[in-house]
Structures are given as C-alpha cells and as structure tokens.
C-alpha cells in the first residue's frame, strides 16, 4: 500500500484518486476549490472521507498546503491541476524540496511534456494520447 498525494482534483485527478483509494492505497487530495470535493463524492454511496480519503483545501504551490496534505510522508505525488506550469513547478518542488520518491505530472502541452520528460520528470500528456487516438481512428476509417 502506498500513500499517494494528488494536487488538483479535476476530472483526471479525482478519478485517479477514487480508483487508487478503491485499490487499497491511502489517498490525500489537495485542491484550491472546495467544490472539487463534490467531484470525489459524486455518484458514490458514501462520502470521500467515509471511505478513508483525505481532502485539503489549498493551492498546490503553497508549501504549507502541501505539508498539510501530507507530502512529507508521500510515496507518490501526482501534479494534476489545470495549469501545466503549476504542475511542472510543483512536481519539481515535490522532488527537490520534499524528496518524494515517485512523482507524476500531467502536462497538456506535448512539447513541454516531452522536454521535461527528457529532464527526468515522469510526465503524462493527455493531448498526446488524444492525438494518437484520433490518428488511429482516422486510419481505421480511411482503412
């Protein structure tokens, strides 16, 4: 079991948070918007906290908020806010300031995702997957 801290509970962050919690991991979510907590609860019979999840209100860039969310104990840190540059900065903070062993970072821009991956960050680029899926689908249609 790992302790996973997720900064940014949008569609991606909250879905990953729920599936990781269901898989038996300890999960703590950080988001500046209290409403994002509802996304964690949506469609569930019980609340996020009832099933053992943690939620902290704060900005991913604030060290105090990261600490409150438990980054100092985290085995895995996921930066999945809506801002590429926030994610890339916070991911480096997690690595260099808090020495989190495993850091994953969402980057929408394929160019930045690729370059930062070459610098040693584990970037995940949803745009890249969308492009590939469109290309595959079109190839099938054209087929």
């Amino acid at each position: 079991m790992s302790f996973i801290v997720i900064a940014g509970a949008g569609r991606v962050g909250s879905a990953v948070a729920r599936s990781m919690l269901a898989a038996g991991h300890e999960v703590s979510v950080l988001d500046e918007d209290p409403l994002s907590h509802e996304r964690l609860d949506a469609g569930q019979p019980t609340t996020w906290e009832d099933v053992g999840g943690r939620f902290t209100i704060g900005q991913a860039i604030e060290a105090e908020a990261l600490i409150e969310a438990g980054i100092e104990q985290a085995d895995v840190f996921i930066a999945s806010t809506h801002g590429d540059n926030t994610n890339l900065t916070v991911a480096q903070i997690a690595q260099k300031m808090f020495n989190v062993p495993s850091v994953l970072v969402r980057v929408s821009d394929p160019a930045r995702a690729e370059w930062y991956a070459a610098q040693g960050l584990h970037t995940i680029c949803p745009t890249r997957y969308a492009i590939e899926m469109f290309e595959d689908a079109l190839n099938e249609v054209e087929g």
Partner: protein
Amino acid sequence: MYAIIVGGGKVGLNLARELLDKGHEVTLIEQRRDRYLAMEDELEHVAQYGDGTELWVLERAGVQRADLVVAVTGDDEDNILICQIAREKYLVDRFIARVNNPRNRQYFDLLGIKPAVSATDLILRLIEHEVPQYGLVHLLDLPGERLEIIEIEVSAGSAATGRAVRDLHLPEGSIVISVLREGTGFVPKADTVIAAGDEVLVCLDPGLEDEVTTLFAVR
C-alpha cells in the same frame, strides 16, 4: 544586446521601452490579445503574440540567439518555467525573473532561478532605508556569496565612539571599509578615530550583524 521580455504588463512594457531607447534589440511576448494589440500599436514588430512558456513561441522569438531573457509575467510558475527552459534547453546565459508572491521566492532559489526580483522585497528594502532601525541600513546582501555590507550611524555613548579603528574589537569576519563624515567618505586607517554622528560602512559575514551593530549604536 538582444533581450526577450515575456509579459507585457506595466513592468514588461516599460522595460521594453527603456531597452529600446538605449538602442537594444527587444522582443516583447504577451499572451493576452487585448494587451498585445495595444502593444503592437506602439511597438510594432517588437511585440509578439503568444504564450511565452510554449517552446515554439520562444523559438519564434529567436530565444537561441537571445543574450537576455526577462520573465515578468504575473504568474510565478510561468516565470520559473520560462527561465528554466531558456537556461537549460536554449542555453541562454542571462535571465531575470520577477517574483510576484514573495512566498514563492524559495522555489526560485530551489530551482536556481536568479536573480529573482520581487517588488515587495524592493519596497521593504526602501522602507528599511528610509526608516532605518537603530540607524542600520543594508547596502548589499549576497547570501549566496556570504557577503553583506551595512551602513550604521554611530551614536554618542556607543562603544565605538572616540576609539581608533584598531581598538574597536570588531568580531572576526567584519571590517570597516568606509567612514562618512560631514558629507565626505574616506577609507579609514587603523588610527582613524570614530566619532558620534559618523556613518560607517562595514563589510561582514552574514550573522554578525547584531554583534557589529551593538558596537556602534546604542539601542
């Protein structure tokens, strides 16, 4: 010199004007359409429209041949990324970053983005200069180089008053480099006698400030 400025707010725009006035080549990148259009009216081809944290936008501006990159957007993460990419991907030697929120300064330090300039810090420094505490002014702080220069007004009744420089018993790691007396500055000798009302400049290792100050000023 070729300078790329990212962020066309008041800081970026005025910097661009000044650098152009001094005869430098400048590109100013702004991602807000309305701001860009206003800039383009005035600065024409100097203004470029786009997100300066995107690689192709920086490349279009010619970042590879830039002598200086200035990141002065209103977003600290953007400014960090711009400098990091300019330095590590495009090997730009010199860059300056703006710190909007002084709390984020630690991240600029963490990632080696310097110099990083914060208006709040600068104004604080000015306030310190205008309203010196115990007659103490920080003239230079280079924490990285472990060097500090302070200016202290010598108050009557302090331990230093009436003593020669050689008898001051300054802590090791500090030295009086200049004395300002009646509007004139001079470099003191060992037998220069310190008088009340003098302003002394002391060069010191960080951490010695309190010890040095108590010699010259009465609290």
